[in-house]
């Protein structure tokens, strides 16, 4: 079998408008860990080798480049590392199905406010939270990694649409901020 080269959906492009920067990130491998009923103990044992535990709803845990993000009831995504041997869970590779965008800068939260139907300001959505919600009409997972740093995980098939939505919101916001009344 020939050696195939994996490409990301947006070839790592980036864009700065006003005070926010949008970029595609390569987060490495993404593995879904869906715990079977009664499998929690075995999964906890398997994750111990990475120093991780299953995250609480709406949150993520991180350790040494390995990240575990809550994505549903009894389900989390392991990112950045290969998945260790896990008993008690359905483990599936999701790497090719997702595109991860980073949105950083002081204006990031205002950009997202135009597209996401929930409060993402710092008091309501502190660092270390991860939620499943919508970006306009697309289902996404939004992670907060810093006061002005978000990651948006969307379906790879909708990568360019997500980029377009965010770019439009960034430009509208920059235009508004540049307008004197």
């Amino acid at each position, binding site marked *: 079998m020939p050696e195939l080269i994996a490409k990301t959906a947006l070839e790592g492009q980036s864009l700065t408008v006003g005070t926010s920067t949008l970029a595609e990130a390569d987060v490495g491998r993404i593995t879904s860990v869906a715990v079977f009923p009664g499998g929690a103990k075995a999964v906890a044992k398997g994750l111990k080798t990475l120093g991780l535990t299953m995250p609480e709803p709406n949150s993520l845990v991180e350790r040494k480049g390995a990240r575990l993000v809550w994505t549903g*009831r009894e389900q989390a995504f392991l990112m950045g590392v290969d998945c260790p041997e896990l008993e008690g869970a359905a483990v599936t590779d999701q790497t090719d199905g997702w595109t991860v965008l980073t949105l950083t800068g002081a204006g990031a939260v205002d950009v997202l406010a135009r597209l996401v*139907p929930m409060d993402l300001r710092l008091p309501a959505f502190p660092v270390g939270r991860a*939620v*499943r919600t*919508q970006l306009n009409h697309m289902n996404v997972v939004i992670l907060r990694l810093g006061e002005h740093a978000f990651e948006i995980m969307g379906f790879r098939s909708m990568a360019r649409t997500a980029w377009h939505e965010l770019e439009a919101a960034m430009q509208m916001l920059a235009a508004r901020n540049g307008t004197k009344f």
Partner: protein
Amino acid sequence: MRLTCPLCGERDRREFYYYGAEDYLHRPAEGAPLAEWDNYLHLRDNPAGVTKDLWYHEAGCSQWLLVTRNTVTHEVLGAEMVAGRAK
């Protein structure tokens, strides 16, 4: 309108999909009389007041929720997950 998902917390109505009355959770047993099936499939109450219905958190945690709300005052009184409920 906002619903408080037991997993995700308070979320906007546009994240949810409405399915129908709580009756869908009470499927008749096999061999139940026809009248019971008729009731299950077709007959619905139209209460003015507290009602229970099923919603799907399609843009969130993908869980079915049993929501208690008041059709007169529009109050949302609570939501519980259908998964894990005692039958």
